[in-house]
């Protein structure tokens, strides 16, 4: 009994306590932000943020006065559009990489990997000029295209590794039963890929939702995603921290919730490549 208690104390000291400290470091900024967002603006600078007398005043102001609803809608359209566009292009490409062997396959796959490594700043300058020439600045299309530069290469790789996990014998069985190659993809592989497609889609959604620099450069008055809207809450002379932090909470909410929902599959997809390396 003694021994067991001792080892338990030891575990608390060497595992639970350090873990709790790391979590404190991880979560306290977030909690501090949440606390600030429910504190009355007038009390913020005298008494500091506190849970006592919590109010949703900042949140209602955010939607009624600032019109945050329109920004949320913009973000939804851009992120949703990127998901549809990105998946539509990358799922067939991933299938080709996973099921066919052809000349230049390796090079093409590396090409998709390379895109994700390039500095955003090298891309953002010419994309702005391009969109300006095409008259697309401040449209949803511009932002969807810009976000796809990140989304397509990533999802090609993520979907390919997911499809590799589906045995080829299944396609072959379908084809001996009279399915065409296309039929076997459509009837057998795709349905089995649904969890992978959802995980990839959610990942694209999160990155597009969180994206800021493209939104700032290629957006404008008509299309103003939430990330830009939050930033513009910083006033010229004084910062209304209550408003700003409630905007932060609202802006972070969809991505955080989605992430927590599909965390396991997402992490498996993300780490697979690295563990093999």
């Amino acid at each position, binding site marked *: 009994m003694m021994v067991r208690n001792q080892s338990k104390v030891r575990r608390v000291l060497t595992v639970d306590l350090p873990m709790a400290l790391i979590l404190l470091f991880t979560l306290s900024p977030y909690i501090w932000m949440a606390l600030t967002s429910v504190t009355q603006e007038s009390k913020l600078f005298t008494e500091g943020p506190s849970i006592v007398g919590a109010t949703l005043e900042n949140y209602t102001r955010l939607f009624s006065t600032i019109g945050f609803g329109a920004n949320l809608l913009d973000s939804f359209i851009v992120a949703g559009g990127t998901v549809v566009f990105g998946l539509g292009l990358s799922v067939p490409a991933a299938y080709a990489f996973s099921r066919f062997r052809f000349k230049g396959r390796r090079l093409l796959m590396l090409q998709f990997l390379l895109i994700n490594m390039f500095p955003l700043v090298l891309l953002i300058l010419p994309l702005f000029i391009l969109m300006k020439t095409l008259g697309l600045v401040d449209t949803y299309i511009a932002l969807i295209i810009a976000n796809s530069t990140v989304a397509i290469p990533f999802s090609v790789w993520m979907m390919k590794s997911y499809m590799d996990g589906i045995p080829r014998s299944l396609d072959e069985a379908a084809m001996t039963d009279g399915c065409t190659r296309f039929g076997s993809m459509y009837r057998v592989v795709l349905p089995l890929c649904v969890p992978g497609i959802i995980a990839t889609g959610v990942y694209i959604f999160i990155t597009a939702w969180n994206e800021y620099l493209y939104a700032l450069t290629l957006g404008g008055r008509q299309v103003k995603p939430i990330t830009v809207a939050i930033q513009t809450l910083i006033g010229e002379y004084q910062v209304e921290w209550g408003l700003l932090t409630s905007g932060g909470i609202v802006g972070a909410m969809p991505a955080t919730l989605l*992430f927590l929902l599909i965390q396991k599959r997402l992490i498996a997809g993300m780490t697979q490549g690295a563990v093999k390396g």
Partner: protein
Amino acid sequence: MSDTTAHQMPLSRRILPIVMLSPAVLVTLAIVFIPMVQALWMSFHDYVLFRPNNFDWVGLKNYITAVNDPVFWTSLRQTAIWIAITVPAQMLLGLVTALLLNQTFPWRGLARALVIIPWALPSVVIALMWVWIYDSNYGVLNDLLLRLDLIKSSIPWLADPDTALYAIILTLTWQGFPFFAVMILAGLQSIPSSYYEAASIDGASPLRQFLHITLPGLSGVLMTATLLRVIWVANSIDVIYVMTGGGPGYSSYTLPLYAFVEARTGLNYGYGSALAVCFTIMLLGFVVLYLRRAGKNIT
């Protein structure tokens, strides 16, 4: 014989992969590679956005300007500091977190889910959250340090040229360490537990087990994750841009940020592109290293 069968391969089997790949390849060509070539092209020109009709070929002039530009060298030095502190800090914290998460304790699942939250937050939100924490008048960090008697008076973390860059580095460490933790945890779980059993039968201490089993077992993951992280940390300018915009003065400029600000605020797309190209070339070494590692695993 095998040659003829290869030629007799049904047409659909040869055409299908091309058909399926071409949309993705063509689109990335159009929205990634052509714009990049255009950036390179712009860097050889005088191109200021408020004089859009002047697009004069100037050869290497923008690059010569960069070499003689003190801000270029300041930014470059700070980019090096930025990477050299942020990546190891993220890795160390990530390693400790992963080692802890690999132990058994009752709330492990919860801890694992919560620790990754920073990674899912928009960087604008992260940046503003930390600006509020660092605030010199009402920020919680100063308040805390004053109460603990660690400082005598409030420090304007982001307004002081000596601390601004390091304050942002702490923020980025906070944002990025969960990525390392998750990667390393996956690596830890792929080390067979029989190794540890054999080692403890032979009487190896936990430290020796860590040095001779865990670290070698993790070396692949650590290498890959570090390369990826160097590239991403070097590229990430949104947090700096929102927190200080590079200031005060030039004290938190990094090279890609300089390129971005030069184009966005200065509208000088020619010089901005030249800076971006310089930065890309410097980063290329890490990119090639990473691609070679990843290329080996293509099956």
